[in-house]
């Protein structure tokens, strides 16, 4: 079997590191959330945190591994919860009846809407307050997540970008990147130029005018 040269090996390691970083970055964001923030985020994804908690307890604390498979309903909201003896793979195949139910529900909703429309056309409408703004669809929530970092940056790279961010008038971003670099390379953070950059960013942040209050 051919032994790779160090360059070839490093190239493969770096490529896999980039792939792994892209995969892991969203997980780091979740791990940094508080319990309340995580629950809110899960709701945005259409998951029920309480149901997930029950599943976790069933799986890891209450049930023996052999029994755990059958004790796992899905936490995905609006999915009928059927605690059966079927394996999980079987549980997930029961989506087709949902489509029929959805069509029936849509038909009922359309009939109700038609009735309401007829009623509103035949009766003068009283003054109504403006409806609240629609909440974002749970399915769109993940798009609000920041883009994952696709390239594994070294602390030196992060410090360079931090300096550039400060030059562009973004001291908060500069400090954030310096903190990130410090986590991976604490020794590098005590370098005079890094400290100077940090001081400049802090001063700039302090001097940055706050947004004028619009009445």
């Amino acid at each position: 079997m051919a032994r790779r040269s160090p360059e070839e090996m490093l190239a493969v390691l770096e490529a896999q590191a980039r792939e792994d970083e892209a995969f892991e970055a969203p997980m780091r964001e979740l791990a940094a959330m508080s319990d309340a923030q995580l629950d809110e985020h899960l709701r945005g994804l259409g998951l029920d945190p309480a149901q997930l908690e029950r599943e976790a307890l069933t799986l890891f604390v209450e049930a023996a591994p052999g029994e755990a498979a059958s004790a796992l309903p899905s936490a995905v909201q609006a999915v009928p919860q059927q605690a059966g003896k079927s394996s999980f793979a079987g549980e997930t195949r029961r989506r087709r009846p949902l489509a029929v139910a959805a069509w029936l529900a849509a038909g009922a909703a359309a009939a109700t809407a038609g009735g309401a429309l007829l009623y509103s056309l035949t009766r003068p409408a009283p003054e109504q307050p403006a409806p609240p703004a629609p909440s974002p669809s749970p399915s769109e929530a993940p798009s609000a997540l920041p883009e994952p970092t696709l390239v594994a940056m070294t602390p030196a790279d992060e410090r360079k970008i931090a300096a550039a961010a400060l030059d562009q008038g973004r001291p908060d971003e500069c400090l954030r990147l310096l903190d990130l670099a410090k986590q991976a390379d604490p020794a590098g953070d005590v370098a005079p130029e890094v400290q100077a950059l940090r001081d400049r960013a802090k001063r700039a942040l302090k001097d940055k005018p706050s947004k004028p209050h619009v009445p």
Partner: protein
Amino acid sequence: MVTLTKEQWVRLYKEVSGFAQASTFTKDKKRQWTARDRAQEAVQNACLRLLETKPASVKTYEDARDYLLGAIRSSLYNERERQQTRKEAEKEVMAEEVHLGRWTTPSAETMHLEKGEQTRSHGRAARIVELTREELKGDAIALGTMDCIADDIDKPADQAEKLGCQIEEVYAARMRRKRAMARAIARYEREGHAPESEERT
């Protein structure tokens, strides 16, 4: 295997559930339910696998998270999809190389400069690989994956077979290796070497 409190198991389960849902997210409304099912199925299968196999390498909360991520990854992205993606990426790189004219014959001066760069590049690569191995001291699976790569065995499934461990453990070891590599590069730069981008200019 790791022992966690109730609260930690709940937190871990929620984290990986959120992660899997975000990973399978699709804007195509017709496929959203299928995507959610796939995600939750992957999470639950990963947890069951962790409980059934009780891998010895899972010693901390973070190890458990890495293991579950590896299992979810293995479940969500089958090898065929990854190969397809890789082929497409390789095609794109090749097209870019041709477009940028990098496939034309370089001048003598360029070749001379490239030779010097190759020597530096060889030294850098050898040192970073060495430092990464140092950082991974005692981590048999992660070091094993590096040996596999040196032997031209890149696929996680093949590595798992060679190392006699589960594919989930290989993925988890890759995460540890990635972090070790970042530390190794930082050490390399502290040794007085300029970052790669500066070396090339």
